[in-house]
């Protein structure tokens, strides 16, 4: 992380009419990492990516990709980026292979290098069998993989993935995740936007949570989760147990208020995680004469983070942000 960052945004502003898509966005993406931009529809994720990819001119602030300004040095930026958007950016009537070769040549590869890389990428993304079919016959998952292959053919140092798994079935999504991990291992810098909290948690080394065009939290997924209270242990009491006695016995371990649920037989205890904690809690309950059925460790999810930060739940929808 001592290197120069791959992407820097300072006070980026973009308005569409009266809508403030970006309202002073600041971002630093370290080189060689997977960075997640997390936020609901309309948060400004796609707008930010389009500014970084030289497709949109910002109204204010500035952004650099590998040290090149996205407005003043747009041509230089285009040499080092790849973009996979929410919509398949391919020619439906060409074969998969012809699409890759075309994009390769337009990415300034020689014809022979474009053919060689096209065949390598088709193989790696399990598309060799479909290579000679027109793209319009492809399934959703195959399209996304081919689209990603097209983004990679010019060997970009920085890759933008704008909601790469939106609308995919679980199998296709798992396959995309596997590919993203492989790319990260190859050293590509990836900026990934997603509205799926789980996806950011699974793939990204660092995450920026975006709401209404600004970053409202930034850190590793673990840091973000700890910031909203870390873990809870859910204690299921035996039928007829003394709830008051249980709460007294558990109080020394809790970092906050212990919350019983409606029937009083389940207690949610906020804790700081440590080895042997559950054993100690069982002993304490036993000493207090309280029977226990079950104990479950519940870690905060990024869903909790999102709710804590914004006061609303991350929406799942299909419209573009």
């Amino acid at each position, binding site marked *: 992380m001592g290197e120069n960052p791959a992407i820097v945004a300072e006070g980026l502003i973009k308005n569409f009419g009266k809508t403030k898509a970006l309202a002073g966005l600041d971002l630093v993406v370290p080189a060689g990492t997977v960075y997640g931009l997390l936020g609901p529809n309309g948060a400004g994720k796609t707008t930010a990516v*389009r500014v970084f*990819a*030289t*497709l*949109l*001119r910002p109204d204010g602030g500035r952004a650099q990709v590998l040290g090149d300004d996205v407005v003043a040095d747009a*041509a230089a930026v*285009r*040499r080092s*980026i790849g*973009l996979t*958007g*929410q*919509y*398949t*950016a*391919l*020619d*439906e*009537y*060409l074969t998969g292979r*012809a699409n890759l070769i*075309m*994009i390769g*040549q*337009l*990415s*300034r*590869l*020689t014809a*022979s*290098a474009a053919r*060689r*890389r096209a065949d*390598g*990428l088709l*193989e*790696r993304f399990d598309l060799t069998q479909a290579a000679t079919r*027109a793209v319009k016959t492809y399934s959703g998952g195959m399209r996304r993989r081919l689209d990603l292959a*097209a983004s*990679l053919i*010019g*060997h970009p140092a920085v890759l933008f993935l704008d909601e790469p798994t939106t609308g995919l079935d679980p199998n296709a999504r798992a396959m995309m995740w596997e590919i993203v991990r*492989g*790319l990260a*291992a*190859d*050293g*590509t810098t990836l900026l990934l936007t997603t509205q799926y909290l789980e996806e950011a948690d699974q793939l990204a080394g660092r995450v920026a949570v975006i709401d209404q065009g600004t970053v409202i939290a930034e850190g590793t997924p673990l840091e973000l989760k700890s910031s909203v209270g870390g873990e809870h242990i859910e204690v299921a009491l035996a039928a007829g147990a003394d709830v008051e006695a249980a709460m007294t016995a558990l109080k020394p371990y809790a970092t906050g208020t212990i919350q019983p649920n409606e029937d009083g037989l389940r207690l949610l205890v906020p804790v700081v995680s440590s080895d042997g904690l559950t054993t100690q809690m069982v002993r304490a309950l036993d000493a207090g004469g309280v029977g226990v059925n079950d104990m479950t460790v519940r870690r905060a999810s990024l869903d909790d983070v999102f709710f804590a930060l914004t006061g609303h739940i991350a929406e799942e929808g299909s419209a573009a942000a």
Partner: protein
Amino acid sequence: MSVIAADLAPGQDSTYGHSPFRLFASDVLVLTKRSIARIRREPETLADVTFMPVIFILMFAYVFGGAIRLPAGGSYHEYLIGGMLGMGLAQTAPGVAVALVTDMSTGLMDRFRSLPMSRWAVLVARSIAELLTQLISTAIIVCVGLAIGWRVHTNAADVIAALGLALLFGYAFTWAGVWLGMLLRSPEAAQQLGFIVFLPLTFISSAFVPTQGMPGWLQPVANWNPMSALAAACRHLFGNPNPAAAVHAWPMQHPELAVICWSVGMLLVFAPLAVQMYRRKAL
């Protein structure tokens, strides 16, 4: 696993060292091939430039033609083909607009715009692919014309000049279509607007009937219509009946020059406008 990382040699596998013009030409070639490959996979996309002219020729030759009398006499079948060339070429313009709007809406344009390729290439390649379909359209019109009795009464140089003028005219109209494609947001709108613009453009001209029969207020419109100039130029160069020779309007007296002026003028207006809109699209 690392297909993605390591198999490119920066010097010999990349074209960055080439001259800007060579890069531009290569981009245009790659994208033109793309458009042609599409036609080969889906030949039915050519229906509007192949069957439509045939249907129009047959309708006008055998349905309406019998009722149309040329002011100075002569064969209507011979008169028809000069007008038909202009219509066959101009009517490809809405198709260009539809194709470009479709590319825009699929995200393919965004990809092109994020690549290190030349900015003009996308539009220039589209116009060149269109020129090839216009060649096909012209060949079909000529063949069907010969079949219904159209004949040329001049020499090869005049015929080549006429076809060259027609293709220049068609190429200029293509850029109007490109501009329309940049202006509009949905393929349906492009289709409809194309219809609304190109239908009157074709019919308020001497393409199918002599302008002498039109009401006095409409005659200047028809005589200055670029479609009339092309029709008159072709009829003149083919040695076919050309009633427009008796019309005093400047374009009818100098139809060849008028076609060149109209075409160059349209190219000078629409090509820069279209390219500027392409650069700014969605910005």
